[in-house]
């Protein structure tokens, strides 16, 4: 134990005194803080500027070509077809940023829109009837909601027409239609909608920590093999103490770095919560059981792969061979990552259930189930026992591979061959 602690302390010194670690931690913390301040900065600049972007043009009740009042600050949309029920005053209430150009035919409108950057109109509407229209656009952006806005407009026109035809008071009609329902919600199980995003984020975090620090542990072993300091180490203490010390140091360092960055992020968010509209407050409200499950399974999964990476690092003599040897482990980690992410919307499905028991994937699958699905306590316990039993097994197998392979130089040793030689 004393020697393991000595290795741990030395390795922690290696991490914490490394300029790359210090610089990367500081940069990540600054970035986290900076990102949280962005809405505040934007808001500050906005309030300093003029709010004169909305220019009210002259409007007439009838739909006509109103681009004559365009002073260049408006988006121009084309419109054609059955325009009898289209009222420009009402339309303006929905499209305050736009002016409309009337086309005689849909072909003319489409021809104009098809000119792309050279077009007069950014998009256009062919009104087929009060209940039907076609929206024409050259390149549709991800956030294009013009079609939806126009639909709302037609819907409102329809309601207005109905009121007129049936002698109803429009305001009374609207007050009935838009009356507020007071709804109270009490979730007795789990709120998947709000749990989804932090679950998604935690899956990414654990994935990144395993990949980043796993490779660092492997590189540390390979470097010692490459600079031959391993010759002294393995003759000074047990290979198990060396590997366990390295792995624990990697875990502690990663938890420290992720924790520091996370605290910077949350601290900075607290300062800017109002500017975010409380949109990230779910990060502060992650249930304790989810955090505990994340910690237990995250650390277990990390340890499992860290031991594997440590053993893989011992199989090669040169750092440039490491990626090739570690490729399979990385592939497994990637597969688990995508599998869990794709199944986050179906955490009670059979795939994620199976994965939540497999030690190679339970580190993220089980906590996703705990966060968003229905899972019994015994299932969590069984999965955790399987995971930690595998960690211990991998620790000792990794230690043996490390011991057997670490003083064999030259060509990379295949993982399968390393396992075979353990049987002898």
């Amino acid at each position, binding site marked *: 134990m004393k*020697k393991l602690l*000595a290795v741990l302390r030395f390795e922690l010194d290696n991490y914490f005194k490394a300029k790359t670690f210090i610089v990367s931690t500081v940069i990540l913390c600054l970035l986290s803080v900076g990102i949280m301040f962005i809405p505040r900065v934007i808001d500050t600049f906005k309030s300093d500027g003029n709010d004169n972007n909305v220019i009210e043009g002259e409007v007439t009740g009838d739909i006509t070509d109103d681009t004559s009042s365009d002073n260049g600050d408006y988006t121009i949309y084309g419109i054609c077809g059955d325009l009898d029920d289209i009222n420009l005053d009402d339309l303006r209430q929905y499209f305050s940023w736009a002016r409309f150009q009337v086309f005689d035919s849909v072909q003319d409108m489409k021809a104009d829109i098809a000119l792309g950057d050279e077009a007069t109109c950014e998009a256009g509407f062919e009104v087929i009837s009060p209940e039907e229209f076609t929206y024409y656009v050259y390149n549709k952006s991800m956030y294009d909601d013009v079609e939806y806005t126009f639909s709302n407009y037609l819907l409102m026109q329809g309601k207005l027409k109905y009121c007129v035809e049936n002698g109803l008071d429009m305001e009374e009609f609207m007050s009935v239609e838009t009356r507020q329902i007071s709804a109270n919600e009490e979730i007795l199980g789990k709120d998947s909608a709000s749990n989804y995003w932090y679950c998604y984020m935690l899956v990414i975090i654990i994935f990144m920590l395993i990949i980043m620090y796993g490779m660092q542990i492997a590189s540390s072993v390979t470097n010692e093999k490459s*600079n*031959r*300091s391993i010759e*002294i180490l393995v003759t*000074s203490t047990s290979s198990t103490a060396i590997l366990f010390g390295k792995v624990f140091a990697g875990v502690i360092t990663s938890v420290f770095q992720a924790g520091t960055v996370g605290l910077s992020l949350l601290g900075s968010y607290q300062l800017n919560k109002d500017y975010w509209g409380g949109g990230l407050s779910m990060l502060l409200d992650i249930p304790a059981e989810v955090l505990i499950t994340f910690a237990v399974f995250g650390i277990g999964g990390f340890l499992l792969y860290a031991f594997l990476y440590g053993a893989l690092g011992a199989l090669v003599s040169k750092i440039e061979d490491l990626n090739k040897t570690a490729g399979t482990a990385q592939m497994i980690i990637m597969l688990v990552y995508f599998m869990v992410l794709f199944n986050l919307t179906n955490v009670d499905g059979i795939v994620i259930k199976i994965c939540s028991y497999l030690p190679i994937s339970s580190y993220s699958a089980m906590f996703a189930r705990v966060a968003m699905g229905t899972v019994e306590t015994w299932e969590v316990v069984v999965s955790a026992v399987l995971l930690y039993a595998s960690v211990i097994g991998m620790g000792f197998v990794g230690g043996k591979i490390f011991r057997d392979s670490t003083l*064999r130089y030259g060509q990379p040793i295949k993982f399968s061959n390393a396992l075979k030689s353990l049987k002898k």
Partner: protein
Amino acid sequence: MKLEVKSIKKSFDSKEILHGISFEVESGKALGLLGRNGAGKTTTIRIIMDVFHADSGEVLLDGATFKPDGRRFGYLPEERGLYPKRVVKEQLTYLGILRGLSRKEAAANTDKWLKRLGVEEYTNRKLDTLSKGNQQKVQLAATLVGEPQIVILDEPFSGLDPVNSQILKDVITELIQEGRIVIFSSHQMSYVEEFCEDIVIINQGEAVLKGHLDDIKAEFGKGRKKLSALNYKLDELGTLLEEKMTELVKVERISKHHVIFECVGDTSDWDILDALKRENVEIKSYGAYEPSLNDIFVTTVGEEAEKEDEAK
């Protein structure tokens, strides 16, 4: 204290590397472990240190199975290896702790050995800022920081200038005088002759020659004479002996200063001297030949290599 290596065998990937190596060494003595590159020396050393497990055979200390721990031995590997970017004292203290010392003891021993080896001024420097020779001395300090009972030195003089070599010689002499076991592996035979009472020559995974160095030298010198002449060059003298004195001597080789030959049958010194007189050879020097370790090594390993070639 007596360290015994008994019939150890080791295979890698179904290829037997060691075929039953045996030797022993006692405290206060140095053993020369010799062999060509790839002969099996390093594998033998790693088995002694329990880094590799022998497939069969055993390593005993005072008759009991040797369970090495870092405290018991110090190893100076041929391929030097420390942490280039770490401070000298930091890493030596670390290695001391790994060998079972307390932090305080490890720090004190680090200071002691750095001072003894004349590199105390570099205590707080990063290793890669030191010259090659000083790095070598730091490496030796790393070997000795645990105050080991058994010291294994693999090519310790490699990369050292004569002044530093002398410091190292003094240190090794002290280690032997203090009653530690020193296993010394080197291709520099003069150093081995200087320190080692016993040698083992390993070739192709077998101990082909072992024993007390003086006995081995006496055995190799038995019946062998060396001769040089004032009126003959060495190669001419060699030819003369081969052509005119075939019934008396068998020329073995011509060294830098002498013709080395073996006496045939019961040939006495007087028979040889008479024959030389008849051939008008003016003798410059004549006497019993005592082979150097280098001669013994070349002869032994060379003969073995020839046998292997013939077998192939």
